[in-house]
């Protein structure tokens, strides 16, 4: 097995949360991705052994869901919404701007492993359309100019923690609703920032 002890320990803790081991596959795949930025064959083998089902079954689960990446992702996963409310609010332009800036097509990662670009379906920010997520942290009410600035900021500053509030303040516009509280924590990789996966961190 190629997960280190602390990962295995974390995995066992996750498995214990469920009445049946198999239910842990989803969270374990997120955990795997937090380690490598994608679902490696190694991780499939580890999960298969931990949960007690075949590797093919784990693989078949992992390929069903769009958030489990089968190829390595960059440090920043740029997911621009293209669903209806964004579509009628110029999401095409935002998509073009991001594509131009990064030189990437859908689901591609650049040579420096900095950016991965994807056009995605509704991210629940329709009131602030057009919207996008960076490593699953949402920024709403985008304009083309601000989207470029956001990409430039990521490229130059390369923040280790992505915080929705910080992006929204600096590059966002209309919001779906009043966010009210300014969280200081965010995500540390191209996985959802979530306590269970140790992928969330406070900004210093």
């Amino acid at each position, binding site marked *: 097995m190629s997960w280190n002890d602390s990962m295995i320990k974390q995995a066992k803790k996750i498995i214990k949360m469920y009445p049946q081991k198999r239910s842990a596959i989803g969270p374990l795949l997120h955990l795997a991705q937090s380690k490598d930025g994608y679902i490696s064959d190694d991780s499939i083998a580890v999960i298969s052994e931990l949960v007690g089902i075949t590797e093919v079954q784990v693989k078949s689960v992992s390929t069903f*869901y769009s*958030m489990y990446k089968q190829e390595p992702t960059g440090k920043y996963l740029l997911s621009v919404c293209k669903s209806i409310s964004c579509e009628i609010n110029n999401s095409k332009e935002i998509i073009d701007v991001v594509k131009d800036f990064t030189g990437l097509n859908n689901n591609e990662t650049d040579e420096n492993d900095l950016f991965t670009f994807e056009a995605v379906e509704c991210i*629940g920010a329709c009131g602030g359309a057009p919207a996008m997520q960076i490593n*699953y942290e949402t920024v709403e009410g985008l304009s083309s100019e601000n989207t470029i600035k956001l990409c430039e900021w990521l490229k130059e500053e390369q923040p280790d923690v992505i915080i929705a509030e910080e992006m929204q303040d600096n590059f966002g516009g209309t919001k779906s609703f009043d966010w*009210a509280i300014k969280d200081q924590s965010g995500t540390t990789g191209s996985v959802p920032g979530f306590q269970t996966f140790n992928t969330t961190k406070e900004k210093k």
Partner: protein
Amino acid sequence: MKETLLLTKHMRENPEDSHLIDSYEKNGGYETARRTLINGSPENVLEEIKASNIRGRGGAGFPTGVKWGFLAENEDRYLVINADESEPGTFKDRILLERDPHQLIEGIIITCFAANIKNAFIYIRGEYAKPARRVQDAVEQAYQKGYLGKNIFNSEMNLDLVVHLGAGAYICGEETALLNSLEGRRGEPRLKPPYFPAVKGLYMKPTLVNNVETISSVPWIVENTGKEYNKLGVEGSTGTRIFSLSGHVNNPGNYEIEMGSSFGEFVESLGNGIRNNKKVKAYIPGGASAPWFRGDQLDIKMTIDDVANNNSMLGSGAVVMMDEDTNLVNAAKSIVSFFAHESCGQCTPCREGTTWLEMILDRVASGRGRASDIDLLLDVCDNISPGLSWPPKMTTICPLGPSAVSPITSLMNDFREEVESLIPTKVLL
């Protein structure tokens, strides 16, 4: 027109800290659950829910009291909260998760008390990282206070609550797909019958699946009685509902209102009208799955039955306004390609049909359409949803396939000329 704040009251009045347990408790939070567990009875809770006549807020609008009544007897029963919110246009559960997670937890405690459930799950879509963090923090706070875990509020009741993150699949919002996903499988819907969640749900045990907004309403109903709730709104659509308004409006957002006013009033007053004083060309009354209404149908009332009687659905409560300049073929294409992308692939009409629809619409939208394409589109639609009736006749395991047909039948019934105008009349060389 005014909002009626039940579910969004606490967050509105306490914007700085509505998500924290201290703030929630300072404003009376968890008192209803405490009293119910110590002095109440499961039967009484169920009676209140039935008397409220609340219908599910996830899309299908099934009466919640009836659903709870169906739950089969078993030692192990589960509650699963559907927080997979992914229907394009919908962002109402997000605000409930982010800004008032304790209201949901209190609803879960009361529901589990009423249904004698010891294990509950909140299935949150993976892209909702921030809402999930807020809920996870809230769950930990509730455990620390002894509101979850063993002997809740020093009563006999035990309850464990797990926050589970999905991984990007709209279809997991469909309740049986959600259960498969929660079991660590591909999110493919199960056949009903025999796999009704209330009988054979999670791990084949009786399971309640309810939407975030539905369960967030439970504390108010139990505190104020079902009778009071039933007085709000109109018959068949009682209580308040959080509508997500988006598209070409001046003030998009979530608005909690009693059901019963018209879409036009709603957009004019709370939405502050259409941007740049434009007219509405078409609008979606209940999320991307719902057939559209025309701009001259703004007087339709925002109730489950009124919308259904006009051959659409109030669905998830997502209202999307499209102004007179909207390219409706592109709009329909966006929706169809959503369904093509999200089809789980089990049923041929859905898997193949949505792919074909996407391809043909793409051709038409880009000016390369053929004279036969309109008939072809309708023919493919007919294969997915025979007769193109509403509600649709099912040829598929779940309603996702027929949903993809909605925007196309809307286009063809009401905006056919717009489609025709895009099809070149001369042969392109």
